[in-house]
């Protein structure tokens, strides 16, 4: 599976923006190298569009591959078109670009989240292995090693240490969560919003936690 990153533009005009982004990339360069990126314009929908052409060429200099925008209002749509970016729907799928209606509000929850039977894995997931469950919850009853990758449309449960990366809500479901017995993850992501190891509160390291999406960002807390 190819992971598409969603870059939420909150203050794209901020002079610090690229310096902060570069910092973030430096923490996990392998993960970001040549990664496809969708610009999520929801937070700036009402602001005046910036020069997306200049902005995307700056992203390419950081070896990111901007592919499209989501949640673009009419003005931003024009800017995106001239920068050669695709218009994607709020969940990351190709959207029906309808310039007369406002984009759907971001917080709107999908009415029927996709949930299949799910997948249960009983053996350790080793570095270099990827397990994905495209239509339900993924449960692992063993350790997940460094460099291993878990991807699920729904929740991810790890009954053991989670040392690799976990992508829950991979189809954009922000209600998906990650649960693990021992948080040592390299990266946790829900609906494309992610935290890398460096960002995790050291007090939560090694603890039994739950990761959920709390509006614009991920929250992590102990499981009672």
């Amino acid at each position, binding site marked *: 599976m190819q992971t598409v990153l969603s870059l939420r533009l909150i203050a794209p005009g901020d002079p610090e923006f690229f310096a902060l982004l570069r910092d973030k990339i430096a923490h996990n360069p392998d993960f970001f190298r040549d990664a496809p990126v969708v610009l999520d314009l929801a937070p700036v929908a009402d602001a005046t569009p910036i020069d997306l052409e200049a902005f995307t060429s700056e992203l390419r200099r950081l070896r990111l591959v901007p592919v499209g925008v989501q949640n673009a209002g009419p003005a931003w749509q024009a800017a995106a078109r001239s920068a050669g970016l695709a218009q994607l729907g709020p969940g990351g799928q190709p959207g029906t670009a309808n310039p007369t209606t406002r984009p759907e509000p971001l917080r709107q929850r999908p009415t029927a989240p996709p949930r299949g039977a799910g997948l249960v894995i009983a*053996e*350790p*997931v*080793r*570095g*270099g*292995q990827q397990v994905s469950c495209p239509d339900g919850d993924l449960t692992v009853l*063993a*350790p997940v*090693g*460094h*460099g*291993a990758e878990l991807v699920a449309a729904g929740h991810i449960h790890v009954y053991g240490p989670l*040392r690799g990366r976990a992508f829950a809500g991979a189809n954009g479901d922000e209600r998906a969560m990650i649960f693990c017995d021992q948080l040592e993850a390299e990266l946790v992501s829900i609906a494309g919003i992610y935290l890398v190891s460096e960002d995790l509160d050291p007090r939560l390291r090694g603890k039994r936690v739950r990761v959920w999406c709390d509006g614009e960002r991920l929250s992590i807390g102990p499981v009672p």
Partner: protein
Amino acid sequence: MSQVIVVTSGKGGVGKTTSAAAVATGLAMKGKKVCVIDFDVGLRNLDLIMGVERRVVFDFINVINDGIRLHQALIKDKRVEGLYILPTSQTRDKDALSREGVERVIEELRQEFDYVICDSPAGIEKGAYMALYFADEAIVVTNPEVSSVRDSDRILGILNSKSRRAERGEPPMKQHLLLTRYDLDRVAKGEMLKLEDVLEILAIPVLGVIPQDDMVLQCSNLGLPVVLEPKSTAGQAYMDAVRRLLGETVELRFTTPPKKSFVNWLLRRTA
């Protein structure tokens, strides 16, 4: 029944060849008939460590590709009864290892030997893959450092998914951890991982812990498998590992600093 055992690691230079030579020699010393094969095509050094490099005429690659018979290539060890070495080529590359060819040689060796030990090259490319593909058991050689442990974890994943046993849905390969170059001083200083830390990550049974020992290099310069040097602590630890491989229960040694002897203590008091 014949057992094919791959000695593998992912990471280079951790002690695979040293371990393959020691385990093969140790098994033969215990009365087993053993063949050790060098899969590191182009970088052969098993024959050097086994001290037979001046007796190589034909090799593994000749047997696979050039119509040479297995018995023309096998080198019989002169020190230990029942020990044979199948060297590899220094000039060919790993593409010379066809799966059918490797399979034919391994099946032929199974008819005759109790143990076939495959010394894998580093990395996760064709040579390493061929060395593990037909194996029944794996000895995963790991050094007590983070990068080595991660590569071992990666190799364990490959053993579980890419081997013939995995592809055929047969019972999984038996996996053993051999923690080598274990340096108690550096472990105590926190510069290297403790056995427990490695086990916690890899979660497979320990076959042995081999101490860092300068005699390993001296022995390999002499072409002497380290188990043939009784003064070597590494050799003793390898011999313990061989006994565990044969099903004996042997306590781990060399994992805690040696107790200060009474004499040392006296000397310190009077100094």
